[in-house]
């Protein structure tokens, strides 16, 4: 009597709801463990060396890029927050 809840049309609809997130977002999130190590290291060095800190703060994006990290906005903001 009850309709099949898993009919093919409904399945196709449900499959289509979960589209892939942009690849760059997924890669950035996947690299979090390595990013944490790099960010921790940058902050630690900045705390120990005022000149390094000044250079870092002058251009956060370049500093991340030098470490081989794409300076995505959320990373730049996080580094900024941790240095302030």
């Amino acid at each position: 009597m009850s309709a099949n809840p898993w009919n093919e049309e409904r399945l196709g609809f449900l499959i289509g709801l979960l589209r892939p997130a942009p690849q760059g977002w997924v890669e950035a999130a996947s690299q979090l463990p390595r990013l944490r190590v790099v960010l921790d290291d940058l902050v630690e060095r900045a705390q120990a060396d005022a000149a390094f800190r000044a250079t870092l703060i002058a251009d956060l994006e370049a500093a991340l890029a030098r470490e081989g990290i794409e300076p995505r906005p959320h990373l730049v903001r996080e580094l900024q927050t941790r240095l302030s």
Partner: protein
Amino acid sequence: MTSRLTDAELVARCREGDEEAWAELVERFSRYVYAIAVQGFRLSDHDAEDVFQEVFARTYERLDRLREDSAVRPWLAQLTRNLCVDRLRERTRVEPTEDIETGADETLAELDLALDVREALEALGDPCSELLDRFFCRDESYRTIGEGLELPPGTIASRISRCLVKMRVQLEGRNDGPAASGG
């Protein structure tokens, strides 16, 4: 990347510092988190990216606080939801209306079901998994898929249909089908 690790096993490995497990956890839930932000709360790409990254950053930092490893999925959903609401509040500078949250909750229930279906899809493995993903999630035509596989479009259509039947059988075998609803 497909593995048969349960959510709980995956979380346990992440907690041990296994970077591959972490990448797999992100892969497993990336579509879900993305869909909640973009479909559930209709965030802009910019806001959705911020929420997406924040969700995984907090998850990474707080895995130790998860009471049950198997609860990572609802935990992620709730975290994403909360961050989306925060973002809407920042944008509108007013409390979100109940309408927004109610509408989002309805979508979230649907997305939760979609994630069940996604898990079943991945359990089916290739070629079904790839065929259905390319057709329904990436909007590739029968012709485009067929060109890549050197098969005529009609064959792709019939294979997709057969894969959906296999999937239906698999889901029905779980005896926990969804409440019948539209869609």
